[in-house]
Each structure stands twice: as C-alpha cells, then as structure tokens.
C-alpha cells in the first residue's frame, strides 16, 4: 500500500531521513519507534506530504505522491492523520469538527455527513459530546474526537504521530482501545509511538529508527525479545529501566 524507495530528506545540513526503503502492506499495522529526533515523525509526515522529500519516491496505492502535479487534497483525504496535539478546531463543535472535511472536501450533503459523524463519534464513545466544544473535553476525549474526524473521510490508511504522548497517563488506555478497534476492523495503520505495550500486543511489525535510518524491522515478539541492532538493544534497555543508565 505504501512504498518508500531510497527516500532522503534534509533540513538544511541535517540529514533527517537516510535512504529509506520500506513497504507497508494493506491491512498491516506498523509501529515506528526510536529515540526522539530519530526521524520517526518526519517519516510518517512524508506519507501525506506534510513534509517534502529531497530524493527517492513514495508511492501510495501505486501512485507516486511526491511527484509535482499530484492532487494533494484528494491524496490527503484518503489518508487519516492523527496528531500528538490533537489539533481539534476550537471554534467548531465536536460534531462540526467531524463534518467539516466530508462537506467541504468530500462533497457530502450535510445531513449525510451528520449521520456519518454521529456514527463515528458513537464508535469512539463520544456521541453524547457531539455538541460540546473541544475545550470542554479531556485530552483523551479530544484525541478520540480527532480519530473520529480523521475517519470521517473513510480513508483506507491511518497515520498516528505519537497519539498518546500529550496525554495524562490515565487517558492513554481509552485512545489505544479505539486504535485497537481500528486494527480489528482490518484497517492499515502506521503508528509512531512510545507505547511499547501497544506495539507488542497490536502491531504486526515494528520499525526501529535512529538518526534517520531504519535500523531494525521485526515482528514485535522478535523485536522485544531478541533485538538485533546494538542501538535497538540499548533503546529497549533504556525504556525498560530508565534509572539504570550508566553514568
């Protein structure tokens, strides 16, 4: 479904993505992990062109998406994106957040978009908050609305950029639960996360990144029990025993 082919990206002198080659199959759930600054967020942001790339190609359903002249808005409406900071529109109600894109971009009739949005809000357990303002919701609720909003265009692919990193610990579970539901429905997911529990239990594959490179790709069981690359071994040791670092 997504194919990276020799992708490179620079921020000025800084080489953010180095020779990325990777394929994500339809229906696959891929978790990208690694230390901060390793390029994981940059990687998934290139998939819906929130970030440009300097060389290589990325294809989505066979279409080269970084080619000039690509219908960017159509592409993006087929890729759901969930941000770390939720980014709900504070001047719109929860329901309006979910109907904006279907009506404005998808050309849906308002009544149709309304029903669809209510069904999605129900799915994330927030139908009763449809007429609330985002500022009245907890972080976990806001993120669940953000997921519903991204689903409203019925994208075949969902990208999550550290969806639980900005949440209080007690709210992480409700968001992961919603994501798990998407996995059960057979959706394709690429998730940048530090939630190793989610990676272990839900992901089909784990990518480990450091310094702009994908250093390891493995099934969760293999990755967590027998990491091959020394950087991956170090990373897993660090997150398991954060106080035992030499030092």
């Amino acid at each position: 479904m997504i194919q990276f082919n020799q992708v490179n990206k620079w921020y000025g002198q800084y080489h953010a993505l180095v020779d990325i080659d990777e394929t994500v199959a339809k229906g696959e759930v891929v978790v990208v992990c690694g230390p901060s600054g390793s390029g994981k967020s940059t990687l998934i942001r290139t998939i819906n062109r929130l970030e440009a790339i300097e060389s290589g190609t990325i294809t989505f359903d066979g279409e080269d998406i970084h080619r000039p002249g690509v219908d960017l808005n159509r592409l993006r409406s087929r890729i759901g994106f969930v941000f770390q900071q939720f980014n709900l529109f504070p001047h719109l109600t929860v329901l309006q957040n979910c109907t904006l894109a279907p009506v404005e971009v998808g050309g849906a009739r308002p009544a149709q978009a309304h029903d669809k949005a209510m069904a999605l809000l129900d799915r994330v357990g927030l139908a009763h908050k449809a007429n609330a303002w985002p500022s009245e919701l907890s972080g976990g609720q806001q993120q669940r609305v953000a997921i519903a909003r991204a689903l409203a265009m019925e994208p075949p692919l969902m990208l999550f950029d550290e969806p639980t990193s900005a949440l209080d610990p007690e709210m992480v579970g409700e968001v992961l639960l919603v994501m798990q539901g998407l996995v059960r429905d057979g959706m394709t997911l690429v998730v940048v996360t530090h939630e190793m529990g989610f990676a272990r239990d839900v992901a089909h594959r784990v990518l480990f990144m450091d310094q702009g490179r994908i250093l390891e790709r493995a099934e969760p069981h293999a990755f967590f029990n027998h990491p091959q690359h020394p950087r991956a071994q170090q990373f897993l040791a660090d997150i398991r025993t954060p106080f035992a670092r030499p030092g």
Partner: protein
Amino acid sequence: MIELIRTYWVYFLIGQYPQGPLGGVAATVLLAALALLLAMPIGLLMGLARTSSIAAVRRPVTVIAYLIRGIPLLLMVFWIYFYLPTVTGHKTDQFSTMLIALVVFDGVYLGEIVRAGIQGVPKGQYEAARALGLGHGRAMRRVILPQALRSMLPSLVNQFVSTIKATSLGYIIGLTEASFIATQINSQVFVHPTAVYLLLSLMYFILCFGLSRVALVIERRQARRGLPRPARSPGSPTATAAANA
C-alpha cells in the same frame, strides 16, 4: 451651555446640510464608517499577502506596508489633497481626500493586525486542516481566519477607535466634520471655548466608548460559547472599557 446647545445642536450634528454639504458629527461618523468598511477587505488581503509563502506576493506588500507606516497620516492627507489632482487632472474634494487617506492607512494597519492574528493561530491548526484535505483557501477561510478574528478583536477595536479620532484631521483641509464645525461655532460664540471643546470631546468619547462596549459584548458572547478569550493587552480599549465598567 444649555443656550449654546439649543442654538447650535443641528449645526453641530449635520453642518449646513441640506443647504451645504453634510457636515458635523454626521460627516465624522460617515467618514469613519466608510473608511473602515472599505479598509477591511484591503486589510484582509494585505494580511493574507503578508503571511503568504510565495515571496513574490509577500515582499512587495511588505514594502508597501513599511512605507505607509513610516509617514504620518497628515502627510498622506497633504499628498492626496495637493499631489493627486496633478495626476488625475481634477481636484479631489475634502471628503474623498480624507476617505482615501484613511482607507489606505487603515488598510495597512488592519493588514498588520490580520497578519498577527493569522500567525497567532497555532501551526497545528493549519496542518490539521490541510491533512484533512482542505486546500489553502478553504483552510484559511474555515479554520484559520475564524480563529484569528477572535484574537484580533481588541486590536481591531483599537484601530476603529483611532480611525474615528483621525477623521478630525479633515479640519486641516477644511472638511466640515465635527471638529471643523466646533471651531466655527467657537468663533461665532467666542466667549465659551471651554464649553464648545468640552462638548466636542464628549462627542468623540461617546462614539469611541460605544464602539468599545459593542466589542466587549461580542467578546463576552464568545466566552459563553466556550471559546478561548483573546488575550487582552492592558492598553487596548476593550480592557479600558472593562476596567471602567
């Protein structure tokens, strides 16, 4: 003072109208209202151009903005009044002169307010809108500008208020707005300058204060809708109005 008001109130409110041009308070209000109405679309375009990612759009507009901000409004009035006729070939009347000067000036200043408003909306809002598939125009119109407008409100009111007061510069070129009429009245009555100018000041105050109150009501209504209130600067007229209330 009562005598003064009784004799001159019609003259103060509308000038010599309908025998002469519309003047007095009516001219002041009309001038300010027209100036703001015409300046708003210009300010919006200026603000959008100033925040454009296209340098060919952004740069020239930035230069214009800096140039116009760098000269006093009074000079602008002189340029339009004395120089513009040599280009167009016929005399610009006083009302049009002031209107043009105020529209150009307010256009630039409103443009700066719009720019600050747009830049004050978190970057994630634009990204989220684009990530949903909204184009640049739709993202601006449906997501960024409605939020920017809310934070701009205090600055907008500031600009509106200063426009009302700036209409008094029309006095210099003989536009018969409220200050000009008040001076006429003063030279006819001669013995009550304090009363005349006190009434004139009161008139300006009522207009400006009224506008500030309207803005405050709008802000309160937003707050009731659960939206974040715009940050108030201590010197903004809405803050002053709130403190006075």
